[in-house]
């Protein structure tokens, strides 16, 4: 058929062949050379085959649900299982950012925090014990409206400042510094007044935003309550829950966009430091916000997250991240990771794909935060510190950058390990840390090293078809 030899042992290490051992890989090479062209694919069969893990995972959760919920399983064990689930969502979502797009973010706890707080606050204050989905939705819509207007104003000012570059190159920087001083001075003075005089434009602006939000809530509230009352009683709580999760995720994604647009211009260490700093800014802003409970956090959040909801969310997160990662979009995202200059030269919009990965990751980070808040019943700003961010990064790195199943494995391991080591009390964290050190020494590429447990679709179909008329082409075409 051809004079060239294919080398099965260096076939793509990410392929299914590798996880199944050598014989399978020789099989792969054979299909590659001899198989007759496969019949035209039927779309649905292909779709079903590619999605086989999904029903399996759902089945697994359904089977485990009675077990975990049972009294016999124990509250302590159940809690660990729940924390595993939340860490899976966090690790998988960060894998998209750190592993696939290669943008090393150290700020995932920041997005988790936005999600946690923006689920906890409406859950406690608005949702009326999870019975008022319409008001909860209205809360998010009002917040989105107010935020959008504010963002538009800030963006307008920013663009004006940027235009001033035409006067002189240094003008925008000077203007920004002057603006920053002005804003800080204004806010520090203006915030002393209940109703700041017009001199304090910025304080006035913030009060106006707050009032606009209050006005929206007040005037939309009664109608929303009526809508909720019209819903069947049994549907109210789950609908509220879903709205809380999606709303929190959306705002985390918006935060990701705002953080990402400037931060993603940086690379490597610089990006890591910038995301770290921005996550701290988020934490300190929330810590100093009185409506959000300040340093004490929010307590008395209704508890609604259970095993089924949490692991359902984990499955959806994994499926979405998987499908993005192993599609044309994911390929572009990985191309940007491999070589940004070459990707741009191949017509890939590098900024778009970096931001896409970042925002999607932030969304599911926020979802994890919301699930966490609605499980824990109380959250404090201290929980979402750098340490939490690093914990998630460790999971992703240990699992292997670019491996979704690796992130899941690592999330399970690293949540269980400290608990299993509990009997040895004070030596626990030493052993834990030593294990991490040895792991990185012995397997620097992580547990799975960029591979997946479940083979991602690499159909032999196009390759099989390709061998068909190779010979005449080779003679006709080259030489």
């Amino acid at each position, binding site marked *: 058929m*051809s004079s*060239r030899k*294919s*080398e099965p042992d*260096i*076939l*793509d*290490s*990410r*392929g299914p062949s590798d996880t199944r051992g050598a014989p399978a890989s020789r099989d*792969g090479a054979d299909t*590659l*050379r001899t198989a007759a062209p496969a019949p035209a*694919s039927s*779309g*649905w069969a*292909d*779709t079903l085959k*590619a*999605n086989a893990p999904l029903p399996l995972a759902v089945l697994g959760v359904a089977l485990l649900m009675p077990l975990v919920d049972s009294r016999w399983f124990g509250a302590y064990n159940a809690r660990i299982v729940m924390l595993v689930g939340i860490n899976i969502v966090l690790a998988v979502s960060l894998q998209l950012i750190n592993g696939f797009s290669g943008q090393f973010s150290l700020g995932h706890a920041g997005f988790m925090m936005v999600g946690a707080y923006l689920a906890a606050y409406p859950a406690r204050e608005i949702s009326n014990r999870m019975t008022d989905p319409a008001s909860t939705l209205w809360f998010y819509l009002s917040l989105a409206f107010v935020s959008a207007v504010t963002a538009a104003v800030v963006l307008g000012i920013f663009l004006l400042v940027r235009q001033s570059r035409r006067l002189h190159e240094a003008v925008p920087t000077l203007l920004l510094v002057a603006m920053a001083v002005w804003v800080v001075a204004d806010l520090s003075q203006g915030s002393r007044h209940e109703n700041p005089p017009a001199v304090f434009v910025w304080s006035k602006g913030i009060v106006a935003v707050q009032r606009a939000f209050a006005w929206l809530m007040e005037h939309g509230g009664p109608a929303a309550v009526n809508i909720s009352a019209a819903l069947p009683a049994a549907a109210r709580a789950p609908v509220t829950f879903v709205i809380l999760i999606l709303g929190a995720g959306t705002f985390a994604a918006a935060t990701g966009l705002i953080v990402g647009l400037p931060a993603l211009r940086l690379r490597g260490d610089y990006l890591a430091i910038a995301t770290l700093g921005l996550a701290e800014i988020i934490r300190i802003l929330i810590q100093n916000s009185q409506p959000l409970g300040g340093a004490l956090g929010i307590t008395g959040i209704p508890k609604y997250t259970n095993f089924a909801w949490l692991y359902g969310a984990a499955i959806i997160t994994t*499926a*979405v991240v998987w*499908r*993005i990662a192993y*599609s*044309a*979009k994911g*390929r*572009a995202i*990985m*191309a940007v990771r*491999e*070589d940004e*200059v*070459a*990707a*741009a*030269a*191949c*017509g*890939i*919009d*590098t900024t778009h794909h970096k931001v*896409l990965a970042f925002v999607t990751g932030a969304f599911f980070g926020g979802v994890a935060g919301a699930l966490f808040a609605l499980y824990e019943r109380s959250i404090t700003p201290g929980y979402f510190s750098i340490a939490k961010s690093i914990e998630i990064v460790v999971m992703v790195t240990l699992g292997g950058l*670019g491996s979704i199943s690796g992130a899941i494995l690592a999330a399970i391991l690293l949540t269980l390990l400290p608990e299993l080591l509990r009997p040895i009390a004070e030596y626990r964290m030493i052993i834990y840390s030593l294990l991490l050190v040895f792991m990185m020494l012995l397997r620097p590429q992580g547990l799975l090293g*960029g591979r997946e447990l479940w083979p991602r679709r*690499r*159909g032999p*179909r*196009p*390759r099989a*078809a*390709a*061998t068909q008329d*190779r010979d005449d*082409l*080779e003679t006709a*075409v*080259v*030489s």
Partner: protein
Amino acid sequence: MSDAAPAKTAAGGKLLVIDRVSRNFGGLAAVTDFSLQLDPGELVGLIGPNGAGKTTCFNLITGVYCPSAGEIRMAGRRIDGLPPVKINHAGIARTFQNIRLFQNLTVLDNVLVGFNRSAEHGLVRTILRTPKFSRERGAAENRGMDLLRTLRLDEKAALVAKNLPYGDQRRLEIARALATAPKILLLDEPAAGMNPQEKAELMELIRFIRDRFGVGILLIEHDMKLVMSVCERITVLDHGETIAVGTPQEVQCNPDVIEAYLGEPVA
């Protein structure tokens, strides 16, 4: 000249028109008054001693650098100052002097990245994986395999790019560039590091690509034999300045060129 101008404008009538482009790095004039015109189907060489500014010219055309002066037009539309992505979308693809493949992606994936612009799906369809998505993905993979087959890389489609032999990596880079469906292809020293036999194959390949895909090719190359035998026109650069333009024979006899390569004649 307006955007609405037809594909071939009065300015020489060529698809790609580079008009007296210069670029300075601080006090250094890397390229001065570089002009060149290229149509689909043409094969033009760009030669010159080391440091003559050849790669800088490529970087100016592909948007890596902004020209300090001059204009670049593609089908009558100005493209100088656009970012590299937009220039690729305008129909110019390139390879790199030091190979820049997506090392950890497979050979097929490398090529499919080039197809991405025509084969990418919306986010919703990517997540829902509709049958249409699978069909289109299969079609894109088939197109990728077809392209690999024409460049004799199909048997290695499943390999990770960094495991390819050197010559194959060069060809894969060309395949990836072709996947973006360019009208103009810029090859930056494609024969670097190849043995004579590989170079001979490469010459055939370049001619074949020109004929098969109908692209205009601008070629930077050090190997005189290759350039002289393959190119129809040659531009010679030295210290950023164009010292000769013409057919291979004309250029070979040009005293300035001989001087640039061999030094001044002994009086």
